[in-house]
């Protein structure tokens, strides 16, 4: 299950969001003061929005170009046959 994304090193490329097959990660705008009046300063960073729905596929970790996504391999919350 996805545990963390090191946002200090994130470039905002959005690949983690794009490759997730479970709609877990959302690129969301970060509020920042404009440098020039009238020129909206746009930046997005990933948010782990639905961690409980992660299917531990590792796509986000594998395809992050900066290597800053941490997915733990243990599987949680899956029913057993007994």
């Amino acid at each position: 299950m996805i545990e963390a994304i090191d946002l200090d090193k994130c470039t905002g490329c959005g690949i983690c969001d794009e490759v997730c097959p479970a709609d877990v990660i959302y690129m969301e705008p970060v509020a920042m003061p404009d440098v020039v009046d009238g020129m909206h300063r746009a930046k997005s960073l990933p948010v782990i929005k639905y961690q409980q729905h992660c299917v531990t596929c590792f796509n986000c970790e594998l395809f992050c170009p900066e290597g800053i996504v941490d997915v733990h391999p243990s599987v949680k919350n899956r029913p057993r046959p007994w």
Partner: protein
Amino acid sequence: MATNGVHGTHIETDILVIGAGAGGLVAALSAKRAAPPATQVTIVDSWKVGRSGHTAFSNAWTVVVAPDDDLESVTKEIIAGNDFIADQPLIHRVLETSWDRLKDLEGIGLQWPRNEDGSYYRRPTRGLKDTRVMYPVGGGLEFSWKLKRGIEDEGVQILDRFFVTGLMKGDGERVTGAVGVQSRTGEFFAITARATIIATNAITFRTGFVRDLTGTGTLLAYRAGAKLRNAEFSYLRPGTPRFYFEGIAFAIQDGASFVNKNDEQFMLSYEPEWGDRADVPRIARAMAMEKQKGNDPLYLDMSRIDPAKRDFYFSSTVAWMQNFLDKLGDEARTDMFGKTPYYPQNQMTKMGLATDADCRSNVPGLYAAGLAQAGCCNHFAGFHIGMCIGTGWFAGEAAVKDLETLPPAKLDAAEAGALYRETMAPRDDGANAESDNWLLEFQRFTARYDIALWKSADRLEAALQTLGGLRERFAELRAPDNHELVRIKESEAMVLAAEIIFRASLMRQESRMSHFREDFDFRDDDNWLAWIDVEDSGSGPVLTKTPIPTPITHPADLT
């Protein structure tokens, strides 16, 4: 909002492929290549095409019959390996064309490991003598991505994040496309198409321990009039929630064994001939009976494996599996070769669309490929992808051929409005998202070994009653956002699937392949060499028996 109450995007195409696993990707490639110039082919997937689906997360082992192989022998042993629940002409054709498909995949850049002498690296697969399987470099991730790039280069329209919620029929009897929502924004869309290929995988109840995706297309096709079959069969395999592991066959070859709480190697008492080397459904059956006797926890004892061979189990050619093993590190080594409890898992149903040998369903304009197509019921290692590739190719070709007679599809205003309202019905901005709790309860119920694996009439009847209660509570669920709407729609398909599976399991009064009845614990070819077909009467499923033609091989051939 328009006066008919619908608001969204309308896309027009000639051939629509729903689902971008092996079946769908190959169907799109096949259709584009077979079609006359300027034919529009569109592929949609709930998530990112080429980066999602069971194919992408697999090793992508596939059966390939080389020119020097004995095609007839391979065909017969695969059919027998399915306990004869198999479309024999279709399987023969899939195998016969597998070498050509290998060349097509190489043509789009997929590489396959070779031996030092230049021949392809191939392995036998569990329990079969002449069948050989091979895998592409990079496994499923490379397979899916190279195919995505391949179809993109050939001009297939690729639409990511299109979650389909219904099939259209216009004002007639043929399928004219699909509707759904963009899986992130929730925007409604309708795609009209002359031919629609369902390639959405089989239904799962998301009970696999990892990467538990599910597909709803088979149930949408059912509601559009398509006949389904093989609901009583499943993909059963032992697994552990501690880590994902796909090397059980190799581990057993190297000395591993299933043991119970008393350290007894119990498989020989259930499978005197094969023991631990039995096919995975038989292992699951034995584990269920051990549990019934109170001999659990059960383990895969890998401590017997020679330490010199253990490193093999910590390497994989598939990037995410290697990542998985690296991150577990010492924990994996301890668990894997220690006492890790194993369970028999029912990972997915084998229920799919009944089709002809060209993958046409009984509904004009509707085709099926991949595991959404019910060509067989036991996709042992290598045959999942093998069947997906074959049926994908045939479905694409059949759709193109039928374009000669399928008229352009028109978006019907009344139908679009009705499907829009049906799709959006659970949306309520003020509601709480509560489907997770409902789903966990549903999964705990459907995963029970004495319902999912080791069945009986009384337990299945009781399960139908329990399902009724779950269905009533499900109807009350609402979605405050699009994320929850998609989850609810997936769960809706699971409820319908569960009913069909229980009813088909009740009807088949024998045990065969992965369908095990405690009260009919024998195979009955005289009465049950047949498919159980399921159709929607409008007020519930209607089940009928269809004898299975055996032109290539019959059970009597094996005696």
